[in-house]
């Protein structure tokens, strides 16, 4: 346990000092990776822990991104309020959607979310008066007012620290959740729904709560992504985007808190080298998923567990 705390401390320290040494483009990429970790952690809760594979998660991310962008652009709401409202709105969307889509399970749930993702994408793409169509929307950078210092505008460095503070909070919060009885219950749902029910688990309530939390994090990631990039357009929220989130959690290791972390870094590194391939890089992702599913079901975390002969996951 002490060694675990030491490792966490060392990682935090490394994150704190990295911007002092790393070139700007690396810090930029790491910030995006941080946002991905937040989104993928939410997807991992739904897919890794509860066993409901969502193939439309980028669609949820889009809801957060557009809601937050529209609130700041059209209603002059500050980014902070807008981001929070967008996350809550996405969670609410998930809750309402859950009433219908959580009646499906297994592959049918996945197909349902796949289609939903496609529907959301075409809304983003075609509802031009609101979403700006394929051109998207430009999002003003957030401002933070601090006492005495006045307004601080968000530059790369502030973003970097802010995002990783959120990553820390999100992963910590998810750990609390997974360690709680809620965590046991959603894992039980993954293992056997009707047995869970017969043992007294209120599975409908648990499933919709889990979907809502997952959507909340997706919406939050979307709001952050839009504001950080300064731009929101439909192509970030297509099926390809959803596939990337799935790839992250599978490569990293399903049902592991650190999985999305490793997965996001591997994927972002890969995407740098595969950029020349354009859309063909999806083929490579596909091959990687197949490889991992056949030869390394536990992903990177599972691999590390084998090497260190120790359980990292809960």
């Amino acid at each position, binding site marked *: 346990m002490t060694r675990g705390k030491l490792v966490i401390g060392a990682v935090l320290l490394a994150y704190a000092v990295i911007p002092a040494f790393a070139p700007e483009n690396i810090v930029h990429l790491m910030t995006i990776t941080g946002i991905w970790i937040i989104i993928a952690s939410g997807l991992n809760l739904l897919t890794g822990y509860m066993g409901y594979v969502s193939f439309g998660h980028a669609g949820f991310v889009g809801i957060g991104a557009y809601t937050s962008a529209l609130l700041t652009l059209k209603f002059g709401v500050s980014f902070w309020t807008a981001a929070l409202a967008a996350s809550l709105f996405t969670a609410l969307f998930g809750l309402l959607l859950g009433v219908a889509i959580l009646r499906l399970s297994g592959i049918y749930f996945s197909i349902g979310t796949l289609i939903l993702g496609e529907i959301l994408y075409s809304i983003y793409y075609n509802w031009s008066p609101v979403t700006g169509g394929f051109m998207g929307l430009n999002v003003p950078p957030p401002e933070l007012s601090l006492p005495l210092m006045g307004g601080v505008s968000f530059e790369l460095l502030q973003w970097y620290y802010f995002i990783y503070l959120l990553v820390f909070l999100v992963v910590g919060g998810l750990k*609390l*959740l997974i360690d*709680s*009885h*809620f965590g*046991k*219950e959603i*894992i*039980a749902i993954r*293992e*056997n729904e*009707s*047995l*869970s*029910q*017969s*043992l*007294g*688990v*209120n*599975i409908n*309530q648990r499933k919709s*709560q889990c979907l809502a939390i997952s959507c909340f994090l997706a919406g939050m990631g979307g709001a952050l992504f839009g504001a950080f990039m300064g731009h929101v357009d439909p192509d970030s929220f297509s099926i390809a985007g959803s596939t990337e989130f799935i790839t992250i959690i599978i490569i990293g290791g399903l049902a592991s808190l650190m999985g999305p972390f490793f997965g996001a870094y591997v994927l972002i590194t890969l995407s740098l080298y595969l950029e020349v391939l354009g859309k063909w890089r999806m083929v490579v992702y596909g091959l990687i998923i197949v490889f991992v599913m056949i030869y390394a079901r536990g992903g990177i975390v599972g691999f590390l567990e084998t090497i260190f002969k120790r359980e990292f996951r809960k």
Partner: protein
Amino acid sequence: MSLLKTTGICKSFGGLAAISNLSMEVHEQEILALIGPNGAGKTTLLNLITNFTTPDSGSIILAGQDIAGLARHKIVKLGIARTFQSLTVFENLSVSDNITIGHSSQVESSLLDMLNIVAYLRGKKEHRHGLREKIAEVMAFVGLDAGLAKEPVHVLAMIDKKRVAIASALASGPSLLLLDEPLAGLNQSEAQELLGLIRKAKGAGIAVLLIDHNLEAVMSIAERVLVLNFGELIKTGTPEEIIRSKRVSEVYLGK
């Protein structure tokens, strides 16, 4: 004293009447056996009581409340726990996790309560301690070695898996335990151990409704026996009365 009472319940699957106009009672703290040929509707009756199937008509009263069609987790909370015909446990989870899930109905279930982080951190130790004691208590009750708590269930022997299934059911604190063919796949001495466990449950104040094809074992343990045939209750009585009944031997052996 009657604990559970069904009145005139019917269930058809398509044109087939699986249960027709069935009225029966389970008394408090008794061991009641449910026997009958294959397809008689024994498991269907269990499924109706636990709402894995909803009855077409009739009422199922538990402690004064009609539970027909009530959500499954609520039925558990009201005190009915069950096991399944084909052994069903969370094979990939540890023994203690299996029992923890069985304890769900006793746990504060609102997510808001769970997310109350300060209370959670404060109560964590206490809660965990309470839970650990509960797990140890249930494991000892069903005769599982305490050292198995962290083992995944799939490594256990058949008899121990059955113990886990019963332990998870008992963790909900039931007043009625429904066991669907608990003796299947066990050898003679293991079956005796399990029968001992059923008697122990009765001793702890739990009524047991038992389905099994091992008639000798059933007759040795049951206080009362219900005989089903083609979805109808054809005979109720003590084991001796059932053995002497001409109707029952006709059903089992033919005329």
